[in-house]
């Protein structure tokens, strides 16, 4: 079975069309008035250029919103015992070994080391280092115009890793302290990194909904904070949200990992007000 190699057919067609257009322009130019056809020439030139951009082989007219993507994956680094924790992580991070022996992918500090950390240092460790291997699908779709979308899911800041059970247990076991540390850090840095959002979700910290709403209103646009509110409502199976068209679009039968709502002020207000009602329903019971 011999696969065919690829010819340069699309480029040839493009060249032919470009030549035809150029010839046509020259003929018309002689017969009609100059003013009309200078305009026509400009229009045709624009058309040909647009055609070329959408058919080029060595690139794409698609551009990823680099700044938006960076914001979606940016973590917030807590300051508590940071140097000490970084030194510990340095001793366990995988290093390429040309002889073939390796650490076996164990990227967790020992139980004794973990136990010896203070609560704040543990918080820093968990926020900047995930111990467990994870597969990263890195879905490439819809990474343009990120600020115009409210996605159904958060990105990850940990690449090919996720929190181990020990780390998840730490978050749950120290829920109140962790929520307080996150709030302190967000107020100070005016940014809620993806690791903080993941921690809030991991702890199902619906008590933080008023804080998240204040953050949304007072901080530069962070659409993933709106995503976080919706994920909290989804996790709590909040009836009003489950019956909404937003829910169907983001988490319904045909939804996928990169489903999104268009960002606009009305949607922002709707999500915040709905989350606020969810918070009141849960906390007033």
């Amino acid at each position, binding site marked *: *079975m*011999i*696969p*065919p*190699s*690829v010819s340069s057919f699309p480029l040839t067609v493009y060249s032919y069309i470009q030549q035809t257009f150029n010839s046509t322009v020259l003929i018309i130019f002689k017969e009609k008035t100059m003013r009309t056809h200078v305009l026509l020439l400009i229009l045709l030139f624009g058309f040909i250029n647009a055609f070329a951009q959408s058919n080029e*082989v*060595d*690139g*794409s*007219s*698609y551009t*990823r919103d680099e700044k938006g993507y960076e914001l979606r994956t940016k973590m917030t680094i807590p300051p508590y015992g940071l140097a000490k924790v970084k030194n510990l992580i340095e001793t366990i991070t*995988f290093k*390429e070994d040309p002889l*073939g022996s*390796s*650490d*076996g*992918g*164990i*990227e967790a500090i020992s139980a004794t080391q973990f136990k010896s950390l203070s609560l704040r240092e543990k918080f820093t460790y968990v926020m900047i280092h995930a111990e*467990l*291997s*994870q*597969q*990263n*699908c*890195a*879905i*490439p*779709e*819809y*990474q343009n115009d990120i600020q115009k979308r409210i996605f159904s899911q958060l990105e990850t800041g940990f*690449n*090919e*890793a*996720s929190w*181990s*059970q020990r780390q998840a247990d730490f978050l749950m076991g120290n829920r109140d302290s962790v929520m307080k540390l996150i709030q302190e850090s967000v107020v100070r840095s005016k940014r809620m990194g993806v690791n903080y959002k993941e921690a809030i979700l991991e702890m199902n910290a619906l008590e933080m909904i008023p804080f998240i709403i204040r953050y949304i209103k007072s901080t530069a646009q962070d659409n993933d904070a709106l995503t976080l509110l919706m994920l909290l409502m989804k996790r709590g199976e909040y009836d009003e949200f489950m019956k909404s068209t937003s829910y169907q679009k983001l988490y319904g*039968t*045909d*939804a*996928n*990992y990169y489903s999104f709502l268009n960002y606009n002020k009305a949607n922002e207000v709707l999500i915040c007000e709905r989350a606020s009602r969810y918070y009141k329903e849960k906390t007033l019971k």
Partner: protein
Amino acid sequence: MIKNFWILLLGMVICTSYSFAQEQRFIDIEAGTYILGDTLSLDNPRRAVTLSHFSIAETELTNEAFAAFVASTDYITLAERYHNAMVFEPGLAEFRWLQDSTAYWRFPNGTSRGGIEEKMNHPVTCISYRDALAYCDWAGVRLPSLEEWEVASRAGSQTKYFEGVELDNIMDYANIWHGRNHLVADTTDGFLYTSPAKTFKANPWGLYDVYGNVFEFCEGSLARDQGRKVAHARGGSWWCSKNSCASFNSQYIGSVNPNASFSNLGLRVAKKK
């Protein structure tokens, strides 16, 4: 006399190694310039790539083939050494896996979820990229590059799937997850985990299971690796659904720690033509 004996023994070892590689049928891919990638991707942008001749296995590497390697070499996989394999069971939230100290290639989802005794013609899983390289060294083959894998999987197509496949009929071509989520077991296509090689239809060039069944390790690095050593795998797996990562196509490229073992990660070998 002794010298001759050792030469004979060495020859036998070499022949045995090659015979295992040769048992597998390979598809020849001609040298040429191919259009790869996706206009939506920066890691894998649409572009023309020129490749030399190569051959690629028509199926994913089976448990039987890996067992022959282990029998011949007494090789111990990373999952066996470090007890850090990641397994799946229905009921887990999306993208969640469990670490199971009992799991390795003979029990890819842990001892409590059964072994491979009746699944020797299924793809080997629960091996790491490092283990895949060790197999290749022994068998005289190699992993395909990211580009080679894509050329072979596309079989001439320039779209997301090889010719004939759409999301509506992918069930005929790929062992994937059809449930809305992973909270409940899904055996819609007859398989919860892996399926035997050649259960589903081949692509136009004769490769089976290029989509679904197991993610296949490839060689290569991407800009998103940012200099870190990352293993890449392609084609999606039995775990992937249209609602989650939907990686069962010729465009996406997955990433994983090179020492990590998952029960949906395996390999398809390649070699110089």
